[in-house]
């Protein structure tokens, strides 16, 4: 009896996943624990593993299909086992929900179509042809399916193959044809390396015509996986939430001093080095606690949720993308704990080992570009947050303090907020409070 492979629920809030990539083909053997398919959740890519040994009998979804959690996505069983009956069961299970039953129906239809087409597939052995015609076709890589026979009962004769050679255009892919035209390559002199001697792109490139390889260096990457998710989330946020960005310059001199003093203390305590980021996170949490109207979300465009916790998402650049792991209850934690936790999730982010839950539940986010020569920017809100803080570099500048020119460590902050649910004044108040606490970090003690 074939076992069902279900789309697992990987996080409390996970409701569906996108089939990203099948790692096993139908008919291939799997062992319990083997990864079978990559599934993209709203945050990360997970590998779904086989729970039993057997043959992957049937995949029910194609890459790109969105599947609800706990839905059957494949069957694993014994070789040759018929899964049609179980498929019907699956059909019944979901028949209550129209959209899902439609889905199953389309799978059945697809199955019927493929079944029909494989039945129609011309068996080249059964094509009526003379021995010499078959031999010539074989030697010249001509598919007998493409030759029409002129002999008795439509039998393919030697002359039919010869006529086919005469009349058939040299086979070439459209791309290769275009390239051949563009670069004036004579295709009649090229031996095709594709199926049945079809000339393909690489054959044209291998002619080493000047300019060909130069002009073809554009790398093409499928728009899928994490990149597609990021793109979706960024544009959803950007086009649904009217962004306003406020900029302010903060005197970080006191923070610099504070960090210097705490560095060795925290290192001894937690074995990590305190960075400005943690101080900024802590200060932000402090300011958010004092400005609860910033620590909010717009839920389903129906209600505004004022979050009791201050959970801050930290944007972390990872190879080819960006993840936002969450530091929870930041306002309740000391700098030592925060430093330790921040380093841990940053490392997990780089390793790609963050769990779905570790990336959910933020109420506010921080994007810190301070390690670059950036002074200010317009960050895009990490939905469902209502605001995001962009952090620039700390730089010594001459500023006026008490009517005197002084050298101070200055830093730019950029606060983008969703103007649908946060007005300009409260946002400005929050940023002002944040600036105040950063310039007077001892207030964190209060």
């Amino acid at each position, binding site marked *: 009896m074939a076992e069902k492979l279900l789309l697992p629920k990987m996080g409390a809030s996970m409701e569906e996943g996108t089939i990203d990539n099948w790692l096993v083909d139908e008919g291939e053997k799997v062992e319990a624990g083997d990864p079978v398919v990559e599934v993209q959740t709203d945050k990360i890519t997970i590998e779904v593993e086989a729970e039993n040994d057997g043959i992957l009998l049937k995949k029910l979804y194609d890459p790109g299909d969105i599947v609800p959690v706990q839905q059957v996505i494949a069957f694993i069983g014994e070789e040759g086992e018929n899964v049609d009956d179980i498929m019907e069961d699956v059909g019944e299970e979901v028949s209550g929900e129209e959209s899902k039953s439609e889905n199953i129906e389309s799978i059945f239809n697809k199955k019927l179509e493929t079944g029909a087409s494989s039945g129609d597939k011309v068996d080249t052995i059964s094509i009526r042809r*003379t*021995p*010499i*015609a*078959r*031999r010539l076709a074989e030697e010249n890589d001509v598919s007998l399916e493409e030759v029409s026979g*002129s*002999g*008795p009962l439509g039998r393919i*004769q*030697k*002359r039919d193959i010869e006529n086919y050679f005469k009349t058939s255009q040299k086979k070439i892919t459209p791309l290769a044809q275009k390239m051949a035209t563009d670069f004036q390559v004579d295709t009649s002199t090229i031996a095709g390396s594709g199926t049945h001697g079809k000339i393909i792109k690489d054959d044209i490139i291998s002619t080493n015509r000047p300019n060909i390889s130069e002009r073809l260096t554009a790398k093409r990457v499928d728009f899928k996986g994490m990149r597609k998710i990021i793109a979706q989330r960024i544009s959803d946020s950007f086009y649904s939430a009217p962004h306003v960005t406020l900029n302010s310059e903060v005197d970080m001199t006191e923070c610099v001093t504070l960090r210097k003093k705490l560095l060795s203390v925290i290192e001894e305590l937690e074995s990590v080095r305190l960075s400005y980021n943690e101080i900024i996170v802590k200060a932000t949490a402090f300011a958010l606690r004092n400005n609860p109207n910033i620590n909010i979300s717009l839920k389903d465009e129906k209600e505004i949720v004022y979050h009791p916790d201050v959970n801050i998402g930290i944007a972390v650049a990872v190879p080819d993308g960006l993840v936002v792991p969450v530091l929870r209850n930041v306002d309740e934690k000391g700098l030592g704990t925060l430093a330790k936790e921040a380093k841990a999730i940053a490392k997990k982010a780089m390793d790609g080992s963050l769990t779905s839950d570790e990336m959910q539940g933020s109420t506010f986010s921080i994007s810190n570009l301070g390690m670059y020569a950036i002074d200010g920017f317009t960050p895009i809100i990490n939905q469902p947050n209502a605001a995001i803080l962009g952090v620039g570099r700390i730089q010594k500048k001459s500023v006026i303090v008490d009517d005197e020119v002084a050298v101070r460590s200055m830093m730019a902050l950029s606060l983008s907020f969703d103007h649908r649910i946060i007005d300009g004044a409260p946002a400005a108040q929050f940023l002002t409070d944040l600036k105040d606490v950063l310039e007077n970090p001892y207030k964190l003690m209060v």
Partner: protein
Amino acid sequence: MREITYASAIKEAMVQEMRIDKDVFILGEDIGIYGGSFGVTNGMIEEFGPERVRNTPISESAISGCAVGVAMMGMRPILEIQFSDFVMIAMDNIVNQAAKMRYMFGGKTQVPMVVRLPSGSGLGFAAQHSQSLEAWMAHVPGLIVVQPSNPYDAKGLMKTAIHNNNPVIFFEQKGLYNTKADVPEEEYKIPLGVAEVKKEGTDLTVVATGIMVNRTLEAAEELEKDGNSIEVIDPRTLVPLDIKTIIESVKKTNRALVVYEAVERGGYGAEIASLIGESEAFDFLDEPVSRLGGIATPIPYNPKLEKAAVPQVEDIVKKVKSMMNK
């Protein structure tokens, strides 16, 4: 070069051999003063006398039994069976004795004899005098079967047959006796098992035997007018058969037709067709290997019906055209 008839060519071969080898002699019905039914042995009794040109009683059994016996004792008899149809009466001597002696005595004896068999139809001799029975003979291991189609081959093959130490069945198509061709007077032999490509062509190979070689060459000329290039192969000897030459030709032309005078059903042409089909030429065939032989009927006396019973030039043309899908 001088032109002589098929009959004269055979006689010349026998005469030349009899002059050289005292062991060679001929025997048969009315072969002396009368010169044989078809005049092949005309004048031989004058040169060699009745001892070496022996008239026999009308008993093919006696002729053949005598021949087998003297051959085993070291003579080289050439016996004429008046019509090949009468070979049935000599069959036990030829098939059970002549063909097997050398094998059954472990090579301690041999039967060097030539059995001349005037065969075939077309001269109005009716059913009992017009058959082509070469397949019967070719079926028997131990017999060599020769079927020359022209005077030159007839002389050369007769010499080879006389020199061979095994019984050789020598089919002479009656309709060919008066055909003339250049034949050198001097000594020459044609080896057994070597076919001759009588005409080269590219579109279809016809393997023809006996008188059908001549009819096929005529048909090929006719077909040439429509642009069909026919290759004509004369195997000359049926056993042994030069299948290699035939296969090479079929590989070139991709089509094979076997034309023979004997009844198509079970004829030797069927053997040739099978050998082609089983050979490496198979992968070169663009048409099923086909046969064109006589229809399965006793040869009629009515001249028109007699003609209709065996392949004629127009039949060959028609058959080739159908194979060319024309």
